[in-house]
């Protein structure tokens, strides 16, 4: 699949602004906002490319969205692109978290914050669900893919098993199943 034409010319300034908005809107997690920015708004990546990059980033240490900023930044702008995308992603969250902490220290509590978070959490859950459904549309329609999707969901969401053993058990099995057959 060829990348959309917009991806040919991504400047450092655009990388910064793109990841800045993803970070700034990322209440309840920046991942769905990053996908929206990269795939739907700016069209720097195809849906398939985003899924592949996120899949790779899940295996790397660190928050997966931070890793996505590094991988995407590096792809369009080399080492400088990686730094710019990373700094863009974290600029506003960094400032906001320090401001919240300062308010908290000063007033000893944050009135209403739990109540606001309950509401935002419900909306964030919906946004993440919708993002997952959109990503599922790029998967091959096979019983194998559906099976591994359901296994990953059940293990993490319903059984609440820890991520690392689940990831490192399911992934090799799924990759093995997808391995090209010798003719």
């Amino acid at each position, binding site marked *: 699949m060829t990348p959309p034409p917009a991806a040919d010319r991504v400047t450092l300034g655009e990388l910064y602004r793109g990841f800045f908005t993803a970070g700034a809107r990322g209440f309840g997690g920046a991942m769905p906002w990053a996908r929206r920015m990269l795939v739907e708004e700016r069209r720097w990546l195809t849906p398939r490319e985003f899924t592949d990059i996120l899949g790779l980033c899940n295996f790397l240490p660190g928050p997966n969205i931070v890793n996505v900023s590094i991988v995407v930044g590096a792809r369009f702008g080399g080492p400088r692109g990686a730094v710019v995308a990373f700094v863009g992603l974290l600029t506003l969250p960094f400032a906001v*978290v320090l401001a919240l902490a300062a308010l*908290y220290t000063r007033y000893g509590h944050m009135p209403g914050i739990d109540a606001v978070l309950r509401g935002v959490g419900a909306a964030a859950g919906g946004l993440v669900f919708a993002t997952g459904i959109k990503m599922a549309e790029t998967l091959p329609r096979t019983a194998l893919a559906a099976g591994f999707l359901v296994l990953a969901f059940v293990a993490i969401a319903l059984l609440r098993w820890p991520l690392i053993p689940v990831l490192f058990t399911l992934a090799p099995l799924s990759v093995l199943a997808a391995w090209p057959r010798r003719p």
Partner: protein
Amino acid sequence: MSPLGTLAARFMMLSLVAVGGVQSILPEVHRVVVEMHQWVTDAEFTQMFVIARAAPGPNMLLVTLVGWHVAGLPGALVATAAVCAPSCALSYFAAGVWQRFRGAPWRRAVEAGLAPITVGLVLATGWLVMGGAPGGWVAYTITGLTTAVVLFTRINPVWLFVLAGGLGLLGLV
């Protein structure tokens, strides 16, 4: 070693084992900052976790707050850089390797194998984010409405977040 140096050294070591983000090393961060160095108390650690979750962006910002508590703004910058630099360097390297093998059959197999698991994990995250707010029918309505709006309309979901936050503030969620 100065507190800033210790902070950097500790967080850089944790960075490389944080597969899945800060959640997976949270017990270890707690052990280091609360029990081993007593930089923050147990109660402060819990507050920082809540504040980091309230801010946009990754939960990793908890580490930023620990740095801020230990040494002000320089501490916040050093802690954030320390927890990110090693894992980011690894990601940069991995991106290069990945790009070099574009088109290789094994890379296509790896991507085909990882894709359904990646999507399963995203859906599981949605479930857990929602479950973090075990609400009544108002919460479920907001979740369902947001899902539908994002899937079927071009409305920016930011407005749903504002609306949902407002409903929460009014005590309705």
